[in-house]
C-alpha cells in the first residue's frame, strides 16, 4: 500500500481527498487544492518529464554497439513481460541482447526475471523468444525466481559464478541502468552497461500543455529515483 505515494496521481488524489474532507477549514483546504493543481501541472509538463528521465538515462549514454568491449556473458533483465501498467518495454532489452549476441560481444545470454501471474516465469519466456530469433538453446541461461532488481543480481550471481563468469554486459532500460549496474557491481561483477529502451530518443518537440503521457514519464522517473534512494539506504548499491 505504501507504494501508492510514489505514484503521482495517487499523491494528487490524496491531497484532493484531504481537501474535500477538511472543507470546514477553508484555508487549509484551499492550500491543499492549490498544491494538487501545482503537482498536476508541473509533473505533466514535457519539460519536467524530460528533465527527470534525462537525468537518469544520461548516466550511461548509448555509444553504439561497436564501442562495447567483449565480455564473458550478456545479462538481460526482465521487467515485466507484459505488465499492462508499464510503458517500459522489456522487449527492447531482449532485442538489444540479441544484437549484442549476433555481433559476437559474448557467447552466452542470461535472462533473469520471475513472477508472472499464472504463467511460465519471465526468464523462460524471454529465452523462448531468443530461440525463436535464432539463438541456440545452449547459449541461453535462465534465472526465473527474482522479483526485483536486487534479486536479479542476487539470484543470477551463483548461476554465473558457477561458470567462472565475472565480466558481464548488462542489458536493461536506460532509465533503470543506474540502479541495475550498481546492484550487479555490489554483488561482485565487473559490469559493462549496455543500456537500451531509451525514452527520449527522437521524441517530437515538447508539448506545451499538461498531458497524461508526460505525467506517466515523470512518474516512472520519480519511482526510479525513489528506488535508487531506497537501495542506497538498504545498502544494496
Amino acid at each position, binding site marked *: 500500500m505504501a507504494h*501508492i505515494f510514489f*505514484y*503521482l*496521481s*495517487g499523491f*494528487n*488524489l490524496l491531497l*484532493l*481527498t484531504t*481537501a*474535500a474532507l477538511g*472543507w470546514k477549514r*477553508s484555508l487549509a483546504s*484551499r492550500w491543499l*487544492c*492549490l498544491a*494538487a*493543481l501545482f503537482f*498536476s*501541472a508541473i509533473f*505533466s509538463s514535457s519539460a519536467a518529464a524530460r528533465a527527470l528521465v534525462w537525468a537518469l538515462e544520461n548516466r550511461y*549514454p*548509448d555509444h*553504439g*554497439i561497436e564501442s562495447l568491449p567483449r565480455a564473458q556473458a550478456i545479462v538481460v533483465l526482465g521487467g515485466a513481460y*507484459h*505488465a*499492462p*501498467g*508499464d*510503458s517500459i*518495454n522489456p*522487449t*527492447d532489452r531482449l*532485442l*538489444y541482447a540479441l*544484437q549484442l549476441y549476433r555481433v559476437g560481444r559474448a557467447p552466452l545470454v542470461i535472462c533473469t526475471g520471475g513472477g508472472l*501471474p*499464472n504463467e511460465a516465469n519471465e526468464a523462460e519466456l524471454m529465452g523462448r523468444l531468443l530461440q525463436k*530469433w*535464432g539463438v541456440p538453446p545452449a547459449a541461453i541461461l535462465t534465472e526465473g525466481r527474482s522479483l526485483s532488481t536486487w534479486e536479479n543480481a542476487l539470484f543470477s550471481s551463483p548461476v554465473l559464478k558457477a561458470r567462472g563468469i565475472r565480466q558481464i554486459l548488462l542489458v536493461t532500460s536506460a532509465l533503470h541502468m543506474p540502479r541495475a549496474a550498481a546492484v550487479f557491481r555490489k554483488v561482485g561483477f565487473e559490469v559493462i552497461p549496455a543500456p*537500451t*529502451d*531509451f525514452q527520449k*530518443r*527522437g521524441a517530437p518537440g515538447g*508539448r506545451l*500543455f*499538461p*498531458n*497524461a*503521457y508526460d*505525467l*506517466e514519464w*515523470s*512518474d*516512472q522517473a520519480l519511482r526510479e529515483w525513489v528506488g535508487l534512494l531506497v537501495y542506497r539506504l538498504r545498502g544494496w548499491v
Partner: protein
Amino acid sequence: METFLSGMAEVLLDPLNWSIFLLTAGILAWKKLRVSRCLCVAALLLLAVFSSPSGSAALLGALESRYPDVAIAALPRAQAIVVLGGALHAPGFQHENSGLIGSSDRILHALRLYRAGRAPVVMCSGGLGRTPEALVMSRLLQEWGVPSEALLLEDHSLNTRENALFSYSALNTRGMRHILLVTSAVHMPRAAAAFRKAGFDVTPAPADFRTGWGGQGGLIGWLPHASDLMWSERAVKECVGLLVYRLRGWI
C-alpha cells in the same frame, strides 16, 4: 487550421486536463463556497476514475473487444499481411538501432503470421519520421529472417486513413485484395473500417492487447496510477478518432 485543431484536441481530450480545468475553476471560484466545493470534488472524481486500472481497462476493453484475439491457426490464409506503423522508435542521432516499444508487438505478430504461412507477403505501412517507419519496420523483419522479396513498403502515409488508401493503391495493382490487418487491438476498429472503406477484404489480426492479462481485480483495480491515466487518454482519443472518421465519411 488542421494543425491548430489537432493541437487543441490534444489538450482538450486529455482527462488529466479536464481535472486541471475543474480544479482551477474551483480555486478561482473560492468565494462561492458551494460551487467551489462541487468543482473540486468533480476534479477529484474524474482523476480517480480515469487513473484507476479499472477505469482504463473499461475504456480500453470497449475498443479491444470489437475484434478479440484470434488464434493464428484459426485465421484464414490471405494474399498479404499489412502491418501498420507507429510501432517503433526509429534510429536517430543518438541511437544507431531502432527501439521496440509496446506497440512493437504488431511487428512480432506480423512475423508470427508470416512464419505460420498465413500469407506470402508482408506490407509495412507508415511514412512518419526522417527514415519512414515502413522502412525501419521492414529492416527489423529482415533481421528476424523474413526474406526481402516477401516485403513490400508503403512509406507515405501519415495517418490511418492514408495507411488504407496508399496501401490499397500499392496492393491493388498486384491483384491483392484480401489482407490480414495487423495493428494494436485498441486501434483495430478504426483501422479495419478504414481499410474496408478503401476497398480491401479485411481479416483483422489484432496485436498489442492492453487488457485481458489479468491481475487488476478488487481494490487494487482502484489504486490510481499515472500510466492508467495515460491509457485512458489513449482510449478517449481513439473513441473521438472513430467519431471524426465517421463524420468525415472516412469509414
